[in-house]
């Protein structure tokens, strides 16, 4: 029996191809990126070793700092606007209302759609002349509010946040809903007998018991904000005048438009570290709580 399940050839056949492709495509490139990040290199020939200069440049370059600031603002918007809304919807739907399944299905639809489609769609919504938003404003008599949402610096950043917040509300809602549903019904029965109100039950019982899933949502939304690329790249390309630039779009243009391979790699390493650190911090925070 045991010999069948410790068949070395079978194990090798089952595991080695996966490990080979995984290591060469996922793991090793991290180290290669780290190596590139200490080079001054334009992709042709050999780069010159310059130590941490690329990182120093990044933290003194106002364009890079601005992109980091944008991603932090984006993370904050996800935490303080998107997650509470998702939580509210999840709690309502988990408390057995009419149409529970229907609403859950509908709220989730945007999550499945390609970010490129979402971005194109919202660029049409924001369109200055014929967009849905301006048409709506004109129809309700607020035509002086109508404007070129993506074309001007003061509105572009917020306008580029909204589609992602909108798209992933349903995702976090679904995760939180699953978390709330997995709580034993007995606890709610007990709370009801004790005369606790719905709101009180939510704050003192449901939400504390949902901590594990709330942690996951928090990690996902913050990391998602740090990594955001598709939407900004398609919607504004980082413009106007870098107003909506985030680290990943800066990384992309640095590498593929200006051929600063070393500096671009430093930005990518920064993004990885940022994600790693924030995951560890959030996990710590939830443990000590």
């Amino acid at each position, binding site marked *: 029996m045991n010999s*069948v*399940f*410790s068949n070395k050839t*079978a*194990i090798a056949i*089952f*595991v080695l191809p*996966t*490990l080979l*492709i*995984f290591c060469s*495509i*996922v*793991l090793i490139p991290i180290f290669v*990126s780290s190596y590139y990040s200490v080079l001054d290199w334009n*992709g042709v020939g050999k780069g010159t070793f310059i130590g941490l200069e690329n990182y120093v440049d990044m933290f003194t370059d106002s364009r890079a700092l601005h992109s980091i600031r944008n991603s932090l603002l984006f993370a904050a918007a996800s935490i303080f606007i998107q997650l509470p809304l998702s939580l509210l*919807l999840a709690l*309502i739907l988990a408390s057995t*209302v009419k*149409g529970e399944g229907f609403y*859950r299905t509908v*709220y*989730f*639809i*945007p999550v*499945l*759609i*390609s*970010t*490129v*489609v979402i971005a*194109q769609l*919202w660029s*049409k919504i924001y369109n200055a002349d*014929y*967009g849905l938003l301006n*048409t709506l404003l004109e129809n309700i008599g607020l035509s002086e509010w109508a404007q070129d949402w993506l074309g001007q610096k003061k509105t572009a950043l917020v306008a580029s946040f909204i589609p992602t917040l909108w798209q992933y509300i349903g995702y976090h809602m*679904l*995760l939180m809903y*699953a978390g709330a549903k997995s709580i034993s019904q007995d606890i709610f029965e007990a709370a009801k007998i004790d005369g*606790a*109100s*719905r709101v009180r039950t939510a704050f003192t019982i449901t939400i504390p018991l949902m901590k594990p899933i709330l942690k*996951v949502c928090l990690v996902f939304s913050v990391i998602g904000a740090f990594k955001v*690329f*598709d939407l900004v*790249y*398609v919607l504004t390309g980082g413009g106007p005048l870098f107003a909506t630039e985030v680290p*990943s779009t800066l*990384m*992309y243009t640095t*590498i593929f438009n200006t051929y600063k391979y070393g500096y671009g*790699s430093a930005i*990518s*390493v920064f*993004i*990885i570290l940022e*994600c*790693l650190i924030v*995951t560890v911090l959030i996990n710590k925070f939830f443990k000590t709580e």
Partner: protein
Amino acid sequence: MSSVETMLPKKTHFIGRILLQLFLAIVAIIQIYPLIWLMFFSLKDNSEIFSGDVAGFPKKFLWSNYAKALEDGNVLTYFNNSVLVTAASIILVLILSSMTGYAITRMNWKLSNTTMTVILLGMMVPIHAALLPLFMVLKNLHLLNTYWSLIIPYVAFGIPMAVFILGSFFKGIPREMEESAVIDGCGIYKTFFHIILPLIRPAIATVAIFTFLSCWNELMFAVTFINDAHYQTLTVGMMSMVGTYITQWGIIGAGLMITTVPTIAIYLLLNKQVQKSMIAGAVKG
């Protein structure tokens, strides 16, 4: 029902419920209307869109927008490319990950736990990290502008989640199933492919859905590794199409609809399973 409701007069209770439904319905409209609007304008011509009635129901359905998008706009090519790349990635992810997940969770060897940990670490790696190194490797291997330049990275980045999901299913299978198979004279391969794999069909569906969504919608690799329109997938193709038909919203809308319809169709058919997949993908510990 909760006690707030029993303590309050019936009327407030009733109004409260109406308000709650109203709130849920408004959110539903906000979440779904942009897509309905997309469907509307994909069936309109410019004169209708730009005459001020951008929001309403199309006067008559202009299906020719779809024909134009598919043929002149190259969307048919992009669509076929997306189908090919996505299908190949799903199949390879399933084959590799089910074998590896099985070997790690059910077979006896020293490094099984280490291997699992290393693979699971991959879930933390953002694709940004691999972009430039992969670009250089693919360039040197002359694989840029081929389907492989997308399939290989999609498979590699799909493996960690798939091994995780499949592995946790394998763990739940009772030992007796395998033991009786072996007693009946099955070797390891027969046990795995004929006895075990059919048992984890739900997990296979979960992984397939998950992989489908991530490949079908992926942009960063697709825009970097392929610039030949002949091999472009839908996400990148949409970007170039928008550039070409900049003012023809109807045709752009048709292209966006064609990109979206397969996903929505799968969702409407398998909506419980899709929701489960997304939850399984998130709850990894």
